């Protein structure tokens, strides 16, 4: 499996799980859980794909982890800044920190695993 595909799959899976954890961390969002999971999965897929492409170019574990964290954090930021339409509350840290850690995990995984792109002869 190449790195972008690994990033895509792992990012999507972790994104979906991340979205589902809202049922535990914020039960009041249960009516919107489908939208949350779809949004979180989409965010994970996009972050994973970007991180996977970066991993193909940058072969450095520390850099990969840092870049993964930053990409995931940037993608989580607009959602974190978006206030809940009912309560008006913003879940900045609750969204930013776990979302960034998901990016960190995908950054690590795409550096350690996955097939680098084949060299042209």
């Amino acid at each position, binding site marked *: 499996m190449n790195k972008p595909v690994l990033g895509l799959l792992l990012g999507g899976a972790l994104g979906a799980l991340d979205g589902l*954890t809202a049922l*535990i*961390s*914020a039960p009041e969002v249960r009516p919107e859980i489908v939208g949350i999971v779809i949004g979180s999965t989409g965010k994970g897929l996009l972050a994973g794909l970007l991180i996977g492409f970066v991993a193909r170019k940058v072969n450095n574990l520390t850099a990969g982890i840092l870049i993964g964290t930053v990409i995931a954090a940037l993608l989580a930021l607009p959602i974190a800044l978006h206030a809940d339409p009912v309560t008006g509350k913003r879940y900045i*840290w*609750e969204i930013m*920190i*776990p979302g960034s*850690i*998901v990016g*960190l*995990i995908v950054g*690590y*995984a795409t550096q*350690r695993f996955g097939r680098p792109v084949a060299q042209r002869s």
Partner: protein
Amino acid sequence: MTLPDDTVAHLRRVLQTPELPGDRYEICESIGHGGMGTLYRAHDRALARDVALKVLRSDVAGPEAAVRLEREAKILAQLEHPGIVPVHDVGVLADGRVFYVMKLIRGERLHDFARGSSRTDVLRVMLRVCETVGFAHAHGVIHRDLKPSNIMVGSFGEVLVLDWGIARVRGVAEQDGPSIAGLAVATSKEDTAPGVVLGTPGFMAPEQAQGLSAQVDGRTDVYALGAILRAVAGADIHAGPVPRPLQAIWSRASSPDPAGRYASAAELAFDLTRFLDALPVEAYREGLGERVGRVFRKYQTAIILILTYLAVRLLFLVLRGL
């Protein structure tokens, strides 16, 4: 009148310097001694490069030793492998002694390398040694004198198995299997005769030490590889406990009974690779706790990252409840 000591020493060095035929090679300095030959750094004028030149020692020179050195050169020349020094030339000195010219390798012997390196690095070197020995076995050559001082780690990470002087080529004592062209007939009958003991104590398999030449095969080298592993990756050199699977690998490799050893150097290499990859090894049956510990060490970072994620989630849950 007496000559000063340094003058005497200089004259002695000059007298001992081999007189090479022609003017292609110029001896620069002596860089080592083996059981059979002296090694020199020489300059190859024709190709403008430094080379290593092995000359039969004058105190062991004789028809038998000459055949052996020539044989070594032929074995090296025909075993083309990154782990075996390439031979460039072979010849005879003015005094009749045989010499051969090979690539000059700069580096350190395995026992010196092991002292300044991690156990993992040493095992990676040993893996390449096993691959080289496996290659030689596949071509019908058994080294018979494997030891740390016969393994060199070059300054660019190259790993070379040296000193094939007492190597045995299949086809002399045993008639089956392939042999390197021209070497079978050149192998000394004395080397393979029953009762003759050649090798280095401490690294010699029991069948070799007892002179049971008919029983000497690839597993004899496997025994030596196990003994080398113990010597360079053991507790004597590296701090910290020796992992049990690694102990099991070298114990199996250097089992007194050939049937109890790995069947080939390739099998030993396979188990070493599995150990380096934190996978279960064939030589050791691990318990549940050891298996969990090994999996944790293998995926340590990934597990820590996932636990961190879960811890953060839990933290927000706790904070929310406050």
